[in-house]
């Protein structure tokens, strides 16, 4: 891989944006977005379909132009110094960006050539990446014959040729099975830990942002409606809740009156009560249930996740976010 100097550029911002705007005709997609992402961190942009995640990535990766705003990536202005930005970034777009006619290895060698790697290094770079992304067996097959997951892995491998300092990943795990998803997460964590790379990723999976990101921003109707660490966002929502299911309507009804319930569902015979999943409060709850001789069929602890964050911030379930066009 490329021999770019490994400057420790932590603390310096890797991506900043001030008042980023983009409209397609009447349709305002981004309505003043501010970002400040420190180098060496993982940033997750969260939003449902059509929120504008891809648009943000395309603008920051010089693919399309914003209508307004001051944008800097890796210390360079995205518009005026787009070539310097391009030299510092790697992009794995939402849709596969591999050459289907070429084999996996040829795809990687193509990238090595375009990064002007020295002849001997390019072979080694390709071999390393094939190994790392578990593509050795498929190295000599055309990428068009790859499964979705293999394609995605090749896609990311190609992005890493040339050792970019800032990597954009647009929905890197959409369409991957749970195992591949975990592999992808490990690769992403490794990049940050071992090479100090900055990762800008978008996702619709709240769990993914929660697990990977140092900071998360939620995109809704063209604006960032929340920004912070996963913990901060969860705090905004308050605690989690506990769901109790009862065997008979009478018990259910009695519980609903005795306990401090947030919500009840008469068909499913459940009640939700506020509370955390810690042992002490669970024991207290169980004691109360025993005391009242309530016969509980099932108990589920729901720790707050980013779904709750989304609900709390926008007042809508995620599925209803897509703008009507």
């Amino acid at each position: 891989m490329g021999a770019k100097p490994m400057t420790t550029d932590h603390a310096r911002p890797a991506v900043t944006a001030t008042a980023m705007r983009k409209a397609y005709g009447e349709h305002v997609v981004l309505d003043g977005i501010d970002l400040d992402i420190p180098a060496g961190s993982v940033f997750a942009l969260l939003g449902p379909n059509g929120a504008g995640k891809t648009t943000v990535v395309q603008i920051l990766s010089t693919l399309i132009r914003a209508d307004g705003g001051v944008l800097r990536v890796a210390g360079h202005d995205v518009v005026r110094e787009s070539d310097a930005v391009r030299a510092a970034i790697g992009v794995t777009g939402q849709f596969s960006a591999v050459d289907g006619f070429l084999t996996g290895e040829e795809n990687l060698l193509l990238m090595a050539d375009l990064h002007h790697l020295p002849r001997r290094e390019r072979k080694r770079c390709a071999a390393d990446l094939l190994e790392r992304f578990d593509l050795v067996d498929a190295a000599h097959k055309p990428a068009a014959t790859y499964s979705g997951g293999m394609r995605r892995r090749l896609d990311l491998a190609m992005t890493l040729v040339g050792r970019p300092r800032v990597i954009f990943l647009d929905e890197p795990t959409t369409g991957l099975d749970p195992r591949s998803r975990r592999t992808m997460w490990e690769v992403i964590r490794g990049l940050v830990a071992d090479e100090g790379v900055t990762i800008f990723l978008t996702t619709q999976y709240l769990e993914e942002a929660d697990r990977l990101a140092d900071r998360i921003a939620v995109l809704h109707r063209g604006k960032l409606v929340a920004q912070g660490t996963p913990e901060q966002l969860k705090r905004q929502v308050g605690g989690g809740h506990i769901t109790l299911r009862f065997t008979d309507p009478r018990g259910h009804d009695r519980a609903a009156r005795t306990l401090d319930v947030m919500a009840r569902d008469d068909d499913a015979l459940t009640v939700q009560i506020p509370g955390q999943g810690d042992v002490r409060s669970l024991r207290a709850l169980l004691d109360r249930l025993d005391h009242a001789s309530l016969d509980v069929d099932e108990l589920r602890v729901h720790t707050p996740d980013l779904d709750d964050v989304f609900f709390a911030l926008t007042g809508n379930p995620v599925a209803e976010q897509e703008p009507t066009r």
Partner: protein
Amino acid sequence: MSTATHAFTDSMTMLRRQWRHMLRYPTLVLTAAGVPVIFLLLFVYVLGGILGSGIGGPSGGRDTYVDYVVPGIILMTAATAAQGTAISVAIDLNEGIVARFRTMAIARVSVLTGHVLGSLTQTLLSMTAVTGVALLVGFEPTADFVEWLGVIGLLVLVIFALTWLSVALAILARSIAAASNMLTPLMVLPMMGSGFVPTDSMPAGLRWFADYQPFTPFIETLRGLLMGTPIGTNGTLAIGWCAVIAGGGYLWSRKLYNREPAK
């Protein structure tokens, strides 16, 4: 390395990529050579007897017609190949890989240069194949060594021009089907020129068009070089047309490509 050397190495990288595509999926290459060969056989064996006598060489008939029609067929190869180029450019632009190229610090136009140089080599190969078949069915060129060099030079210019034009049209068309359709008229142009019959046998309106469209000087110059017929001003006209089409096609392609991708 300077920007210019980068532009060169990147274009060569893209050219190698094109060659790989061609080797792996030779369909477009074979079509580019196959269609003109079919036309050649059709015109020589089905229509050649009559057309040859109409053209009225010393012996008339099929043998005269082979020599008359081959330059037109060779240039038709340039047109079918241009259609192939348009299709492969359109396929490429619809692939994510080009979006990736756009986010990389490479010479921007190198993707297109790769296509053009790839098509150039591929079309020259197709033309060699077509000429081979022509020789088998009785084509007897009179060109000497220098004239053959002239033939190659002219063909390179024509291919270069038509390829840049087809690249621009392909970017404009965006979809693969539209790109293919847009280039179809190009295939008909050799027939609506002096490729298959002399233009003075055509009705006035068509004849006017035939005399002024670029394929006629291309064909007349090629015929002159191959068969020793008079070239006159056609040589200059052919080179002029090539320069205009190539320059225009290049600038237009570059402008269209630098435009924002529409998703």
